[in-house]
Each structure stands twice: as C-alpha cells, then as structure tokens.
C-alpha cells in the first residue's frame, strides 16, 4: 500500500471543528526593531489532534522557535491565534509544558534534580504526597530515579535534558512542546533520547509538538511532519509518516520507506531554502 509520494497536504492539515486539541490559525509574527520590521512568521495554519506526535521541521532561521513561543503563550502573535481545546492562548496555559533546547539554563542550578522536577507542582499547590508520587513516576519514566539528590550541573548533558523532560512530564500537560531539545547533545545520547520521547508519548498519551532542524529525527520520531518554508514562514507541506508504530533506531532507519520519506522531506527543505513558496498553501488558508 506504500506509494512513492507520502500522503500530504500542501499547507497545514486542519481538522473539523471540535476535533483538534491545538489549533494554529493564520498565525503571523512581526518583530519591531529599530532597524525596521522583521517578519518571522507570515501565515501558519495547522491542527494537532489529541494524542498526536508531530514534528515541525524547517530550514534554520525559519521561525521555528518563534512559532513555538507563540504556541506556548510566551510571546504574543501579531495576527491570528492559537487555540488549546477551543480556548484562545493568551499566556502560558496550565495544560502545556515546554522543554527548551538550553537544558543547562532551563534547569535551576540551585535546586537538586528532584526539586527541579517538583517545583512547578509545588508552585501549583499540588499536595505533598501526590507531588512525591508524580516526581518519582516522572523520574522513573526518564530513567533517572537513581540520581534524585544530584544537582543538574553534576550530570551529563543528556541526563540534564532527561531531567527537563521529567519536569515537563510530571506537570501532566496535555500538550508537550519541545524546542530542538536534542540539538546540543551528542549523537548516541540523542538516539536514546529520541526513543525516550516515543516511549513517554506512548505511555502517557500526551500530545507532542517537536521542533527540530534534523530531517532524520523528524521522520524517525513523528507520526506527522510539518515542513516550514524559509522566513517569512508558511507551512510548506504537512505529511503523514506511515512507518510502523514500533520504531527502532536500526530497523526503522534502514527501511526503504524511511529513505523515501527522507528524500521527500529533504527535497522540500531544499526547495524551501531556494525560496520556493507554495502559493496555493497561502490561498488555501487565507480567505
């Protein structure tokens, strides 16, 4: 049943009303600087269904981080909106957790591992017993229940990012946003962390939006890949990754289908870099 070309949408895929957990609608972000306006994101529309694992991939400087910050409510958009469960996002929502690329700066160095994971729960007023349970479960899920008393800076980069993931997981979000979380770790650690994300996603049924610049990573991890154009950003293509649900670093990556998808996404990114813009995508989403 596998075809040459993946199932794809030019422009972002949208779901019928009420089915999407996270909706991005005509999102535009312009930075006003002294040197003039910079249009980072021009027009983005796509939906995330409940329980999906979607990767966002795009050339560097394509406004991936800007988009993620708008979705996370850390930054206001110039036009358009982000809806979580039908509610407009105006500030960081309780149902969302973010994992940042700079784990070393995102974890608080004055807190031990357990305290870091516990802090958002403590701040939210979760009772102590439950807090303890959630923290323990989250640390077990990322394979770090043996170092609770360490400080983050005593751990390796990969382990620090696990702590950050545990902190996000313990917060029990419905949507987990990840901003190039593995860009700063070595290749082997990266493979482990990718598998960790898949297993956490399956176990907890959380919806994941994973931003990356790594094409292979986006295909290996995602059930769906959204390809962004170069800046000013629009959705170049939104494809379904029809790889088996059980992914394996060696097996999956050597499947012919993996190679096909990789070729396809690579081609799209190259087109994006050369300034190709799918005009039909814009006409589709703009009334």
């Amino acid at each position, binding site marked *: 049943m596998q075809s040459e070309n993946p199932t794809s949408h030019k422009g972002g895929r949208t779901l019928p009303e009420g089915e999407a957990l996270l909706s991005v609608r005509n999102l535009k972000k312009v930075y006003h600087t002294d040197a003039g306006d910079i249009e980072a994101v021009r027009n983005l529309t796509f939906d995330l269904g409940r329980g999906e694992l979607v990767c966002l991939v795009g050339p560097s400087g394509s406004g991936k981080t800007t988009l993620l910050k708008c979705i996370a409510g*850390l930054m206001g958009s110039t036009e358009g909106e982000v809806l979580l469960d039908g509610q407009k996002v105006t*500030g960081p929502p*309780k149902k969302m957790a*973010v994992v940042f690329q*700079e784990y070393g700066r995102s974890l*608080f160095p004055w*807190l031990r591992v357990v305290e870091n994971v516990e802090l*958002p729960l403590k701040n939210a007023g979760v009772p102590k017993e439950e807090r303890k349970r959630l923290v323990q479960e989250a640390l077990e899920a990322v394979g770090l229940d043996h170092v609770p008393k360490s400080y983050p*800076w005593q751990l390796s980069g990969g382990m620090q990012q696990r702590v950050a993931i545990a902190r996000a997981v313990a917060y029990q979000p419905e949507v987990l946003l990840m901003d190039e979380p593995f860009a700063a770790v070595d290749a082997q650690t990266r493979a482990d962390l990718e598998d960790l994300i898949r297993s956490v996603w399956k176990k907890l049924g959380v919806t994941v939006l994973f931003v990356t610049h790594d094409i292979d990573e986006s295909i290996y991890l995602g059930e769906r890949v959204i390809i962004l154009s170069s800046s000013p950003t629009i959705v170049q293509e939104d494809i379904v990754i029809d790889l088996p649900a059980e992914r394996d670093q060696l097996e999956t990556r050597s499947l012919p289908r993996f190679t096909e998808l990789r070729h396809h996404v690579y081609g799209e990114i190259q087109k994006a870099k050369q300034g190709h813009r799918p005009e039909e995508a814009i006409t589709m989403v703009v009334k």
Partner: protein
Amino acid sequence: MKTLKSVGYLLGLPVILLLWWWIGTSGEANFFVPTPAKLVTTFIDTWFGERMLTDVLPSIMRLVVGVLAAIVLGIVLGLAVGLNRTMRAVTEPVFEFFRALPPPVLVPVLMLLVGINDGMKIAVIISGCVWPVLLNTIEGVRSIDPVQNETSKSYGITGFSRIRYQILPSATPTIMAGVRQALSIGLILMVISEMFASSSGLGFTIVQFQRSFAVPEMWSGIVVLGLIGVALSFIFQWVERRVLRWYHGLKEVENAV
C-alpha cells in the same frame, strides 16, 4: 599531614609578624609601641570585665542590627528597582550620587535629625552598608537568564513565587558579594559613629584611651576591632558556603570543562 599544612598556612604569617614585633620591641622601650606581653595583659585586663558589657557588646549589637537592616533594605529595594526597567532608569543616577557620599559626613546631620542615641549610630551604619547590597541586588536581578525566565513563565511561576523560587536564588551570588562589602563598611562606620558623640562603645573607648595617653589600652582596642572583623569574615564565609554551595560547584564544573 594535610591538616598540618593548612594549619601552617593559617598561622605561618601571624607567627612571623608576632616574632618581628617581639624582636622589634625587645630593645629599649618605645612609649607608643607596647611589647607583645604587655599588650596581652592589657588586653585581658581592659576587655575581659565590665567593658565587655558596657562597650563591646553594645557596639557589636549596633553593628549587627545596622548591617542586617541594610541587607534587608538593600535586597527589598533592589528587587523592586531591578525588576522594573523604568524604575532602574529613574533611580540609577540618584543612587550613584548617594553612593558617592562618604557616610561619615552624614554623622553630624543624623545627630541633629535622629538625636544622639543608638538609632543615630545604626542609621549611619545603614546609610553606608545599604549601597553595595542595593546595587548588587539590582545587578543580580537585571542579569537573570532569559531562558530561566521563560521556564518560570511557562510553568506558571509568576509574581511573588517567581521572586522566591527563581529571582532571589539566581541573584544570590551577586547579592552575597555586596553583603561582603557591606560588612567591612559596617565595621568602619560603627567605630566612626561612636567617635563623634557617644558615651559608650568601642570607638568611644579607643578615642578616650588615645586622649588620656593610655597607649597599650588603645592598641588593645584596635586589636578588638581586628578580631571582630575576622569573626565577621568567618561567619560570612560559613554562611556563604552554605547558601552558595550550588554556585561554587557549578563554577568548578564550568572551569573544569
């Protein structure tokens, strides 16, 4: 062997200095420089008695109250100013002006305003000690990592919780550097405030000894000041090691890379 070495480092130079002093004063007597033995006996006679209660403890009390008040005031004001860009812009030139004023010149003014009492002396100490703490707190708050800010924000840690869980801990290394400066300024101002108008305290007593040519007693008072300074510094280091254990560990790791 290791402890022996560190004890050697700790006491080595003091022992050499004492020896030098002892040899230097062993010849013909100089009225203005007492011998070590003379100073030790004077020290014990002068300070281990009533003076401990009437002069030393009140001085230390004023110093401690003044420094602690300055630390609290400096941190609270520093947070308020540091977190607000407009406040920073408005207050910075004014703060620079006040910081530039040598606090001793305020003693006569404060005497008139507050009166000649403990309050005046504490006010002098605060007026000098608050600046390093205040300015360092502002600096510490201002240089907070934007990723830490976004982390707090995305996990709903805002307002007072954010100050408590993120901003204060993150600014502590800078604040502690200010506190260290405040301690030495505090000691100086404690003495000066007591030299102007006072009937008790270390500064007062030392000036009295000077005026009555009680030279060994005067020297022994100076030794008391030195000892208080050393004690303060040890207490500070002990507190700092506890509060900033994470910071020193982090720096060690960063430097090792």
